[in-house]
């Protein structure tokens, strides 16, 4: 069956792609790292160099260690998962807490909600965000509304749904989607997207422990390619708090997930070639999102660019743009720019042209400064 391929991210494939997709090369050209304060003060024995899936794995292990009710389940999680995020967890915590489900996303979501509303910390995996849609009814109509409709007698706060999202170089329509906007339009849900391994573990633990249902979207592009030191222990990065990745004075650039690395490159080039100083913001939580950090930045710079892989129309760039013009109208020196995917399904052979890459973002930075 061509529907899914567990071999998508074989190491050898990825190396080839990082050379071909020079525009999206990671780690060698950029120095995007996670929040430094998370590793400050820790000595070497408490840290380990990890890639994103190892960091996720570490976070999941901490979650199961610290909470005896925590369970992880979904398709193929028992042997380690198609992206290796759940390696070794079944051996460590047993088959009652780490288990495979039948191939059925609506079942996974329904089961997860039933567990979460009955005293279990339910960590469900949707193998690809592209396949989350059969579960949409359960997530949007049930999980998100459980507390509200029951008058707070019941709640689905112990639910976390993890799912790989985003472009991977060769994913096409059904292995590349970024469906965050559908969920960010649903009151009652939280949507979280990490951008580095260190961020991923901390945000994952915060999401699991947050008393609200969270859709946690993992940028599959970064599973192997993003590498940094990550604390071995238990730590959290707060939800709904963005971070300034890099301070600047001329243009505010907002992104999240894998796109942050693309933006970091664009921002670097803008400085090198045009002496434009950009302030790069990682939103981390897409819903509810940290408005203040963006407003404060735009009041300083007067210019805003939002960039995401998802199609531009009704993407989160639209929401951010709307709020910024509501609150910072008189500070704006130029129209807000969105550098996003086109309003087409995600094409395979055209990915390099479709993608909101470094060049398009660099162009936008220059344009907004020249306005």
């Amino acid at each position, binding site marked *: 069956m061509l529907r899914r391929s567990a071999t998508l991210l074989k190491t050898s494939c990825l190396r080839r792609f990082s050379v071909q997709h020079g525009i999206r090369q990671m780690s060698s050209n950029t120095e995007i790292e996670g929040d430094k304060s998370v590793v400050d003060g820790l000595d070497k024995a408490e840290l380990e160099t990890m890639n994103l899936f190892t960091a996720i794995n570490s976070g999941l292990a901490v979650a199961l260690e610290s909470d005896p*009710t925590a*369970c992880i389940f979904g398709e193929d999680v028992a042997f380690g998962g198609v992206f290796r995020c759940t390696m070794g967890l079944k051996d460590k915590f047993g088959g*009652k*807490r780490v*288990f495979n*489900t*039948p191939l*059925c996303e*609506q*079942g996974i*979501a*329904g*089961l*997860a*909600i*039933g*567990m*979460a*509303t*009955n*005293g*279990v910390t*339910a960590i469900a995996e949707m193998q690809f965000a592209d396949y989350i849609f*059969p579960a949409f*009814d*359960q997530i949007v*109509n*049930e999980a998100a*509304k*459980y*507390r*509200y*409709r*029951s*008058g*707070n*007698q*019941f*709640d689905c*706060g112990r639910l976390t749904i993890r799912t790989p999202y985003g472009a991977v170089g060769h994913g096409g329509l059904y292995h590349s989607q970024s469906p965050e906007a559908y969920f960010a339009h649903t*009151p*009652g849900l*939280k949507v979280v997207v990490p951008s580095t391994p260190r961020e991923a573990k901390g945000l994952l633990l915060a999401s699991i422990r947050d*008393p*609200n249902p969270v859709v946690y979207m993992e940028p599959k592009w970064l599973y192997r390619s993003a590498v940094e030191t990550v604390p071995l222990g238990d730590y959290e990065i707060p939800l*709904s708090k963005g971070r300034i990745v890099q301070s600047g004075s001329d243009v505010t650039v907002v992104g999240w997930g894998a796109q942050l690395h693309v933006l970091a490159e664009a921002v670097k080039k803008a400085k090198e070639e045009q002496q434009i100083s950009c302030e790069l913001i990682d939103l981390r939580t897409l819903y*509810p999102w940290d*408005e203040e950090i963006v407003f404060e930045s735009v009041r300083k710079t007067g210019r805003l660019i939002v960039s995401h892989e998802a199609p531009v129309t009704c993407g989160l760039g639209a929401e951010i743009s709307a709020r910024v013009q509501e609150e910072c109208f008189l500070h704006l020196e130029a129209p807000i720019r969105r550098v996003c995917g086109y309003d087409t399904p995600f094409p395979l052979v055209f990915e390099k042209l479709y993608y909101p890459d470094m060049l398009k973002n660099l162009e936008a930075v220059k344009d907004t400064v020249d306005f």
Partner: protein
Amino acid sequence: MLRSLAPRLVAAVCSSLSTRVGVSSSRAAFKAPSTSFLPTLSAAAAASSPAHRLFSSAPNYDQREFVGELNVIRSDGANLPCYRVLSPQGEVLDAAHDPELGEETLVKMYETMILMNTLDNVCYDVQRQGRISFYMTNYGESASHLGSAAVLKKDDVIYGQYRELGVLLWRGYTLENIMNQLYSNHLDLGKGRQMPVHYGSRELNFHTISSPLATQIPQASGAGYALRHVHGNTDACCVCYFGDGAASEGDFHAALNFAATLDSPTIFFCRNNGYAISTPVHEQYRGDGIAARGPGYGIDTIRVDGNDLFAVYNVMAKARKIATEESRPVLVEAMSYRVGHHSTSDDSTRYRGADEIEYWKKNDAPETRLRGYLEARGWWSQEREDEELKATRKRVLSALKDAEGRKKPGIDQIFHDTYAEVPPHLERQQAQLTEHLNTQGIHYPLTDFHK
């Protein structure tokens, strides 16, 4: 060989323990080739696999049965039998199956049936008068509700669809709870957020009803799993009620498959009342009801006369025993008839004859059967019936009046409970509404709401 599958199917589901359906290979025409190179299940895995419990669809190549005759299993409506204890007139057909619940319990059940009918009568009329916005009656299904609810224990977790009033009442949901919910007032446990009949009670372990159909079914698979495999509770089960129409939803199929593979102690109780709004069952499915689907998922199954209180009770007791003792799901299909309209938004005479409805009311009513049994033992009489009807109506109208007079919840309840906390953007939106009401408040019915 395959033609004989149907009776074997019946035998398999009627026996209390799962049996391996052994199939003799007297007609095998092929000799299986050497299979030493193929992977096989270990004996332990084979013994524990649910697939092995019912049918010989063994993954082991050696154990597959190959036949030389081409026999398509014609789906010709082989019918699973329907278990009954009480005749429609209230006579016990086999005394050995009388659960002998006793005068006190049975009288209480009958009085609850009267309460259900009175509530339904009053609330339906009250909706017609425009005093509540919506209502759904339960006529014809009281035996399904009470017979099943009476078996359950306090810690059992219950999910419903919307036509389970008797289950709620038997658990202890009060008249006040009901009326407050129907009127969406400030004492509503649900804080006025949902349409009438969307009941829920944390205290009674009855999860709040939601409108989307069948969504509760896979949740029940998860709840059962949580009870048994995470919390280690060996004397609790999850029960999930749903209708014949809801059982067409994908969530039903997902739920049963999950419950089976994960050994959830969940009882799936299908109220087959013949209709999903206007859609009769022959337009809802082509197979032998919902019960026939159970074995397909590897789930123990029984069909029962849903209008027979004792039969439902016995079946539920057995189902609960299987679920809790063996940690596995059970499918119960209770055959009944939806005497009332789907809801107050429906006029069912538009799609079915009044004579059909009359037939069921006259010839097969759950109340009639129980009353027959009670009166035969001198535990009930016409005099008591008259008294009880009068007293019940009085109680119901009094609770209605109280609920009607209460204010709705405070306006701030719009913004609470979307999340555990009230996030900044909702605080801002609440402030926007407050500001709007400061100047425009006179155009809104603000006095309806609690301060």
